[in-house]
């Protein structure tokens, strides 16, 4: 089954060229947003592999988005502004990671949630000419707003996250992450540098999410604290990853593709109340596939790059 990844990549590369008739651009648009969701969910998952449930993705997404927008509006070359996204998110996450190092489980989750909410309010309350306040700012598009180009850029951003995830999976880090998740004490006994590893996972994840934030903003043309730092983004990220299957590379990606397709199909078929059915499906999947969607896959071939 090794061909699945490359095959999926080929499909992704071909999306803008698929002769889907009039649907081509629509498919490209939907695919772009799927890529964004998949990238955030996967980046969240990388950090979750150390057993920490972060509710701060919205903060890093927003920081990346604001770093890009504010720099770009001040005349910084767009490419540089874009790179500021992951940089700012990464640096801030390092500070947050150090401070919250000792928190576990729900305590860590709520501390990160609280952090995200505070950052949102700060950006709302900063002077108008700096952040645009609650109204936000218009963001300049990358690549002159060229749709297909932006899709490929999105694919590139997504692939960076995938590569990071695979690199973690196939390095010794994987064992360190897994060991920490199963118990920090044991991990320490096994010789894992717990502090350093947890921080690495946290910063890597945040920087990747910051990069997605910068990209998404160049695609959406705006930053608004209420939306850009919205807690919904964090919840979607973790729901997507769990739905697809946590601690894997394929899971969050699959989760993003299926969830969006599911929503679109339900919307077209049912029109009214389709989100209620969507909720029921989420429940059924987690009840009958406790390992998420990828467990369908792993059931058939246990050796594939699954979880732990």
């Amino acid at each position, binding site marked *: 089954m090794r061909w699945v990844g490359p095959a999926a990549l080929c499909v992704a590369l071909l999306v803008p060229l698929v002769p889907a008739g009039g649907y081509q651009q629509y498919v490209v648009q939907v695919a772009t947003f799927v890529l964004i969701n998949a990238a955030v969910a996967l980046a969240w998952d990388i950090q979750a592999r150390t057993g920490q449930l972060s509710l701060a993705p919205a903060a890093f997404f927003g920081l990346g988005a604001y770093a890009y927008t504010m720099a770009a509006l001040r005349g910084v070359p767009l490419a540089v502004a874009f790179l500021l996204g992951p940089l700012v998110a990464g640096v801030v996450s390092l500070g947050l990671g150090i401070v919250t190092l000792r928190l576990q489980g729900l305590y860590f989750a709520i501390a990160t949630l609280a952090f995200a909410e505070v950052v949102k309010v700060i950006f709302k309350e900063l002077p108008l000419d700096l952040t645009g306040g609650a109204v936000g700012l218009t963001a300049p598009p990358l690549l002159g707003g060229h749709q297909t180009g932006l899709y490929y850029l999105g694919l590139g951003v997504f692939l960076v996250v995938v590569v990071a995830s695979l690199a973690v999976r196939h390095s010794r880090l994987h064992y360190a992450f897994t060991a920490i998740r199963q118990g920090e004490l044991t991990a320490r006994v096994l010789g894992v540098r717990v502090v350093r590893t947890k921080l690495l996972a946290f910063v890597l994840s945040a920087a990747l999410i910051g990069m997605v934030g910068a990209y998404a903003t160049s695609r959406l043309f705006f930053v608004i604290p209420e939306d850009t730092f919205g807690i919904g983004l964090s919840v979607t990220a973790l729901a997507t990853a769990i739905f697809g299957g946590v601690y894997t590379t394929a899971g969050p990606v699959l989760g993003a593709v299926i969830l969006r397709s599911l929503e679109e199909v339900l919307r077209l078929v049912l029109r009214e109340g389709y989100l209620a059915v969507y909720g*029921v499906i989420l429940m059924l999947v987690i009840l009958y596939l406790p390992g998420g969607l990828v467990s369908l896959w792993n059931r058939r071939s246990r050796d594939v790059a699954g979880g732990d």
Partner: protein
Amino acid sequence: MMDLFLQTLANALIQSGTYALASSGLALAVGVLHIVNFAHGEFLMVGAFVAYWLSVLAGIDPIVSLVPAGAVMFAASGVIYQASIRRVLLAPELNALLLTFGIGITLQNLAVLAFGATPRVVHTAYQLTAVTVGPVSVGVAPLITLVVSVTLLAGMYAVLYRTGVGKSIRAVAQNRTGAHLVGLDVDRIYLLTFGIASALAAIAGSMVLVRIGASPHMGFGFVLKAFAIIVMAGLGNLTGVLWASLVLATAEAFVRTYVPGGGGAAEAVFFLLIFFTLVWRSWRTA
């Protein structure tokens, strides 16, 4: 100056009643079942709608309706527990999170289908009545909320620490396997606890109805703050919920009253306080 100070204190006390009520059920569910119930806010919403329709169709006061609202949610949560929750209790804890997230989305959108997204408000006789003591003026409705929430928390505390059932619940909360070994029916106790927790959410909902109204999307804001409160209190610490609510409501009220621009900043202060408490605690105990 003293007047303002006293009024602010009263405002804080009043608001802490709502916070404590919205959080106590969640504290019970998280403390005993060890699941993160994302649907808690939607359970609150269900309670608000039950009380709303009882008020509109049968003229029953929401204060009275907190009994049927709690009963409805107690029964409904039994079904939800049997059909879904019990099956994820032994799965990785993230599964319960997605499950309850799904339950929440479903309930929310069923409510939108049935009632539309516009909030609905009720009228009660005491809604416009206030009690004035010296310079301090306090609404009767929030006062009732405060009394209800303190009574319920005291009742819960009494049940947990003075009755056999409470002892069983605490035993299960502390050690599921151990409780099972000494012959406790863990599953039944979980069912009961989840039912009480959900009923508490519905009761909070009928109180919120009087203050704000009922709408399909009302739950999320409360559940977000409720999570923060129970975590600040310390998981499984029921009395802690009361003081955490009081501390946070006081901080909010004082920031809103004494800090220029405090209206927007209060939200940040609420979460900042929680953030620093958690972090400080984690480093102190190390």
